[in-house]
């Protein structure tokens, strides 16, 4: 497959004091830096821009390669020349969310007032705040309207909120493996992940910068996370009861099974690439999210005018299909034009990164249609 080639992350800083951004909880925050990447070219009438929202621990680096890197961006299969988000046709933007640790301002950033990392003094940001910050970036880039905005998992929550906050701003919205509020089970799983980090003595109430990081807690948290991203079937297909480098089990507490090794590998690599406090903050942000606020989804979606495509996966038990269907139903009740599909997949929540073929077909067709209808409206 074609790649975009070498790309680089850019940065946009705004909300310099005294013009700080007021967050949903009333706290003022500034300056704010947002890391972002763009691919493709904005066309002359600025009608081909697509905003992609990333998931919990991802970043602005969606596609292509950073200088010297061996691995491409997190959705390289989907974004590039000739791919679903065809960078020969579309101008694709993705920014690292406010509160994250991949170049945007978050708990691991230096607080200019104290010259130390914010840590737990960082204010709680909401999905609304993340979305507002990204809108500031798009204003800065001179984008007046989007052809589409798209997100999977946490990215889907942002895309949905975006569609409610800026209803006229995009022709279409693509939601993948997401929902409109976190359920008790989703909150519970996050809470276990958070407790894993917070009970690590090295966490030190979030004040571990420059000291030893809560590596064991983070690794454990990520191990739990990865279980929730897979399905029973995909785990069984991938690992079964395969042993690692031994003929029979050891009857001790060393690692016997491949699945144990896999989780350890995932946990350890997470420690290298992510910040513990950021993980606490972002999972909490997700848990706080409820589009309805008063429980009435149909009412909450009243402002929406964009066209919708909603994709879910049959074996995803973290963001189950029925939640996507509820969302589609409530959009239909608002006379919104919505297409929805449940892709039959055994990959669980991971399917949104793995089921490239089905997703590509759907998104390619959908964007073609939206381009046609959008230019017709103009």
């Amino acid at each position, binding site marked *: 497959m074609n790649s975009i080639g070498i790309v680089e992350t850019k940065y946009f800083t705004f909300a310099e004091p005294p013009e700080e951004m007021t967050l949903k909880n009333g706290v003022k925050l500034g300056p704010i830096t947002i890391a972002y990447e763009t691919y493709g070219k904005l066309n002359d009438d600025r009608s081909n821009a697509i905003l992609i929202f990333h998931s919990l621990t991802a970043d602005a680096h969606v596609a292509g390669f950073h200088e010297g890197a061996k691995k491409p961006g997190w959705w390289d299969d989907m974004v590039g020349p000739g791919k679903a988000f065809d960078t020969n046709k579309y101008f694709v933007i993705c920014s690292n969310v406010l509160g994250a640790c991949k170049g945007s301002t978050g708990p691991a950033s230096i607080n200019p007032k104290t010259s130390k990392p914010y840590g737990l003094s960082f204010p709680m940001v909401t999905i609304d705040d993340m979305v507002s910050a990204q809108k500031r970036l798009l204003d800065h880039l001179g984008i007046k309207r989007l052809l589409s905005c798209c997100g999977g998992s946490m990215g889907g929550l942002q895309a949905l909120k975006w569609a409610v906050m800026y209803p006229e701003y995009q022709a279409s919205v693509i939601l993948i493996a997401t929902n409109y509020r976190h359920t008790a089970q989703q909150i519970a799983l996050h809470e276990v992940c958070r407790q894993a980090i917070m009970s690590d003595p090295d966490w030190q109430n979030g004040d571990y910068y420059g000291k030893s990081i809560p590596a064991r807690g983070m690794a454990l948290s990520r191990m739990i996370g990865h279980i929730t991203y897979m399905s029973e079937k995909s785990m069984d297909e991938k690992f079964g009861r395969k042993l690692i480098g031994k003929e029979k089990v050891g009857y001790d507490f060393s690692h016997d099974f491949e699945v144990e090794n896999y989780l350890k590998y995932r946990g350890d690599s997470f420690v290298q690439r992510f910040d513990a406090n950021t993980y606490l903050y972002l999972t909490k942000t997700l848990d706080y999210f409820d589009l309805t606020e008063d429980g009435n989804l149909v009412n909450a979606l009243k402002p929406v005018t964009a*066209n919708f495509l909603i994709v879910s996966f049959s074996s995803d038990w973290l963001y189950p299909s029925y939640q996507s*269907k509820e969302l*589609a*139903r409530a959009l*239909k*009740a608002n*006379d919104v*034009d*919505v*297409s*929805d*599909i*449940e*892709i*039959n997949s055994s990959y669980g929540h991971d399917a949104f990164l793995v089921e490239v073929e*089905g997703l590509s*077909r*759907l998104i390619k*067709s*959908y964007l*073609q*249609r939206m381009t*046609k209808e959008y230019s017709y409206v103009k």
Partner: protein
Amino acid sequence: MLNESPSRIDHKVICDLIEPNSKVLDLGCGDGMLLETLMNYKGIRGTGIEIDEKAIYQCMAKGLTVSHANIDSGLSDYGNKRFDYVILNESLQQVLHPQKVISEACRVGKKVIVGIPNFCHVRARVQIFFRGKVPVTHQLPYEWYDTPNLRFLSLKDFRKFCKKNGIKILKEIGINETGIVGWRPNLLAKAGLYLLEKN
């Protein structure tokens, strides 16, 4: 490029029944061929409901709005009289609760178009009478053990059904492979197409 007219007779008849630029919902839309035809000839805005995942991709490729659901439950999502037409072509005989589906179709559609295979076509009758077997014909190609059809009805049965349920038949058109069957459709038409209305 458009042909002179749609290639399938039933699609041609349905096309003639529909006003230009309408909003149309096709229940059990399959690969979206009928909706695409209606888009091309009548400039409609089409939405489909379809249970088969593979067919959904084909619908999307045709630029349709499509919902992955079964007909029995997929209609409750839509508001009253949301569509100008709701179409049930060759799908009613496969639903679990046809009475409920028709009544829901009448709720969300200003008009409803139903296409049914005629299980009492003369050939079927001959097979039952002379050969003593459940009919298998070109229009009814399935053996009893592998048929998707759950309901077996004739044009006459459907008329009676509509009357009983307070549904007005605005038009009844009998068809076979070559065209419209005007004379004794319950005996000679292989399928019936209905334009219905219920207020």
